[in-house]
């Protein structure tokens, strides 16, 4: 049976009290708990996605020696709310020759694919919607819905810019899925399981217990994953699907108002999810240094640790965007197929050999004895 939020809460005494309130209707109670947690997590991540646009503009302003948004709220913090309201009251334009059904469907597919990944993201011990034992595999699979959404958005707009952007997006997302998945596979070898609970609990709070520093191959896999994830989320320097200097705005050129907002929100939340996965897989996840227990008040600390690592990676993603120039299409493909994929396969084989040769011990354990 999979560990879920409900089964986690069931071990506390107040759960029996709740069951008594619901007159022993367990399934209704668990449905309500799932609903509340889903709303909480989606609301939180939507806010993070919104604040991501603010962070993007503010950090880019810092990098380019400008000030950035500073009018709405303190330090311009409420800028994303103003933008959101603007998007909602904008006219919803449908191009005359667009494929109506697919045009409406595409942004929703993107958003669904991203929100579905939040179900397995480990925010803290027990505070994970459902700890599927195929967790990371599920995440990789369901996020491919974003590729379909990008492609359909490009096709349905019936405009050449959108079409080119959509095709670039789909081919890029499919290609980079391969090195990313193989890097993740190397980590599942180290953890001995695909569930996020297993992966995180096999690491420790201190850097030498992280999978990133477990062995040299895992160290390389971290960077392969990160580069591949940048490309999968269409972030610069891999933002070819929406290259504004050549394709106007790529696959979402024809979208206005909230439909465009859905695409933007999906992109920013996906960056957050990808950073969260990198944290859980390579950077020790939510583990508190020196402690490994999941009792209720300590989870606030675990949550803070997870968010700190994830948001630091988020900062790096934005930093990279405003530092590197965009790649050409042929460079993009040759990086994926000629460099990242062979390196990822090398890492996978290397990790497997390491696990057999050193009986699953990390470098720190080999050098300093037991940790």
């Amino acid at each position, binding site marked *: 049976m999979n560990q879920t939020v409900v089964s986690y809460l069931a071990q506390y005494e107040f759960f029996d009290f709740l069951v008594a309130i619901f007159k022993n209707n367990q399934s209704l109670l668990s449905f309500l708990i799932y609903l509340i947690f889903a709303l909480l997590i989606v609301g939180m991540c939507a806010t993070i996605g919104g604040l991501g646009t603010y962070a993007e503009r503010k950090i880019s302003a810092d990098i380019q020696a400008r000030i950035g948004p500073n009018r709405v709220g303190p330090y311009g913090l409420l800028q994303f709310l103003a933008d959101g309201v603007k998007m909602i009251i904008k006219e919803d334009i449908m191009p005359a020759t667009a494929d109506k059904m697919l045009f409406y469907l595409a942004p929703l597919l993107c958003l669904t694919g991203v929100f579905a990944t939040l179900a397995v993201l480990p925010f803290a011990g027990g505070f994970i919607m459902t700890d599927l034992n195929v967790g990371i*595999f599920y995440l990789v*699979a369901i996020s*491919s819905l974003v590729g*379909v959404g990008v492609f359909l958005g490009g*096709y349905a707009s019936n405009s050449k810019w959108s079409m080119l952007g959509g095709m670039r997006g789909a081919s890029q997302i499919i290609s980079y899925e391969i090195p990313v998945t193989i890097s993740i596979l190397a980590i599942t070898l180290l953890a001995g399981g695909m569930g996020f609970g297993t992966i995180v609990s096999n690491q420790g709070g201190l850097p030498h217990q992280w999978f990133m520093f477990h062995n040299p191959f895992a160290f390389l896999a971290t960077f392969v994953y990160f580069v591949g994830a940048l490309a999968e989320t269409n972030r610069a320097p891999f933002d070819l699907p929406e290259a504004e200097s050549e394709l106007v705005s790529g696959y979402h050129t024809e979208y206005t108002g909230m439909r465009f907002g859905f695409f933007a929100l999906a992109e920013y939340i996906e960056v957050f999810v990808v950073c969260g996965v990198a944290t859980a897989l390579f950077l020790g996840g939510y583990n508190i240094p020196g402690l490994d227990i999941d009792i209720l008040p300590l989870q606030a600390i675990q949550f803070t640790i997870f968010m700190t690592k994830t948001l630091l990676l988020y900062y790096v993603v934005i930093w990279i965007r405003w530092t590197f120039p965009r790649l050409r299409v042929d460079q993009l493909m040759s990086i994926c197929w000629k460099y990242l994929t062979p390196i990822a396969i090398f890492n996978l084989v290397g990790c497997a050999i390491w696990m057999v040769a050193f009986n699953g011990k990390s470098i720190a354990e080999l050098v300093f004895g037991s940790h």
Partner: protein
Amino acid sequence: MFLQFLFISSAILTLACTVAVLVTKNLMHSCVFLLGTLVGMAGLYATLGADFVAVTQIMVYMGGVVILMLFAVMLTGGKDFVSRAQNLLGLPASMGNKWTYSMGIFVGVVFILTNVKLLSSIIKTTPTKTIGNDFPSTVTQLGHLLVKDHVLAFEISSVLLLGALVGAAIIARPRKQN
């Protein structure tokens, strides 16, 4: 009860999208409805306890096959196929005549009857509650089965995939100009 609700809604999604795939006249729309069918099937697998198979279904079909189909339809001109013939009489003669159609229907009926005969024995017996196993998860169980009991089939399929990969590389490589 919750699981039953999920199972029934997945089944309805699968059936509705399958009907939509057949009925819609736009080839692109058929592909998108096929996506719904495959997601619904993944839902069926997941509610029946085969979580790994469900996720593999999503990974392979949604992330790979459907995108490939969309590409193929789009690059070969999906717009031109909008008004394809729906009725039997409107089909070109090379598709068959009434004899081939009646033969096809006959074979189909025999096939369905054979399947019903085979499945009736399964339906009558009640399934055993749980299959006793000492694996922590389906992933572990599948892994053990694949590399211990069925290692030959596993290796043969990997050779097949390697062949496909080499074939794709040969087709895609630039030809020498001389």
